């Protein structure tokens, strides 16, 4: 989708708000919201690609103006409701209650397995690499062009690289394809490559900064051979 989250190259957002001695969490609610990726993930709410797509469906104005971890709470609510685990009326009722009684305690429950999961997943992670028999169609050194079309749904094919031509500089193997998994499909693994674009290819000679490159990772379906290269059908 052509969403506001796709920020690369957007002008007019102003200086970077750097905070000195920034704490890891700015409020207690941020800790709870931070727990709302890994724990609902374990409960089958979403994979990381769907999690991102839920955030991308926030209203653009709210996306830009809300604190970061509210994005996480939004996507958890989105998928929790969609899966029938969370009831919207219940959420509203309890929100009103906690707004009037901010110090009211949370329900207490102990779950040693969940505690062990938290420590385990932090250490082990959850790689998106997936085995596949697919042969890589491209190799380091190939010049490729990114498809220019605007897909609906979740994609990592950012607008600022669409239609642009660059050179493959790294080949990473096969990974979950976000354009499938993020839209409720299967892992559908595809080869991932890093493509190097010159600044002038991305922004034009007039405004591009000198002597610079942007490196962007693409899944194989995002690219075609660059025009004029051997075997190009584009």
């Amino acid at each position, binding site marked *: 989708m052509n969403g506001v989250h796709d*920020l*690369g190259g*957007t002008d007019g957002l*102003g*200086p*970077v708000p*750097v*905070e000195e001695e*920034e704490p*890891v*969490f700015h*409020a*207690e*609610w941020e*800790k*709870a*919201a931070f*727990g709302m990726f890994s*724990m*609902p993930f*374990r409960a089958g709410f979403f994979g990381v690609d769907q999690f*991102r797509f*839920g*955030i991308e*469906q926030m*209203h653009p104005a709210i996306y830009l103006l*809300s604190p*970061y971890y509210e994005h996480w*709470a939004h996507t958890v609510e989105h998928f929790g409701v969609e899966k029938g*685990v*969370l*009831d919207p009326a219940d959420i509203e009722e309890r*929100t009103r*209650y*906690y*707004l009037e009684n*901010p110090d009211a305690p*949370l*329900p207490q*429950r102990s*779950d040693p397995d*969940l505690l062990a999961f938290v420590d385990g997943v*932090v*250490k082990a*992670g*959850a790689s*998106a*690499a997936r085995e596949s028999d697919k042969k890589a169609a491209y190799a380091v050194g190939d010049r490729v062009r990114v498809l220019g079309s605007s897909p609906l749904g979740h994609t990592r094919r950012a607008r*600022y690289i669409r239609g642009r031509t660059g050179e493959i500089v*790294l080949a990473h193997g096969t990974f*979950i394809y976000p354009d499938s998994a993020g839209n409720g499909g299967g892992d559908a693994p595809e080869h*991932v490559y890093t493509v190097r674009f010159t600044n002038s290819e*991305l*922004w034009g000679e007039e405004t591009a900064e*000198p*002597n*610079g*490159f*942007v490196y962007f*990772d693409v899944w194989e379906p995002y690219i075609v051979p660059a025009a004029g290269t051997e075997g190009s059908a584009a």
Partner: protein
Amino acid sequence: MSTTPTRPPTVRQPTVRTQEEIAARVKALEAIMIEKGIMTTEAVDRLAEIYENEVGPQLGAAVVAKAWTDPDFRERLLRDGTATCRELGIGGLQGEDMVVVENTDTVHNVIVCTLCSCYPWPVLGLPPNWYKGPQYRSRIVREPRKVLREDFGLDLPESVEVRVWDSSSEMRYWVLPLRPAGTEGMDEQALAALVTRDSMIGTGVVPAP
């Protein structure tokens, strides 16, 4: 007959919530998920504690210091960031597949995630708010020299090539910064203490002691 268009449940009128409203809503979600067996407050606290006290830029700094003092380690790190960090027991969530890019006298690297907030947690911890915010994400790919100069006080000469790594896939990039002059006699531990978070993002350099 007129029909009222139905609004998808996730889209709401653009009204920004206050901190109090967000806190109440998150608490409501947490309460329900505790009752449903999905979350616990002890797991929330443990997860927060890990990233407040255990996993942070001090881990990346240890890797950098070792790379500066051990050429074989440096070579392995640049070839396979994930496996080489594992040698030091460093790795895991949001760093399952890491690529370390090296700054030199003629190349300066900087990382971003223009589409969301991807960041190498096992070596840098959780990202600062500015890294996740729209200003940095929009501008660093379009005007990196200007952002580094005006927002981070890092003025790079035009002769230095600037490479911006947009973390659009699950590969997690981070920067092996230049070892500053005047550190020749220092051991790994002393070197690690010099390495800043921003030098591993690429929005800073390691200052000379």
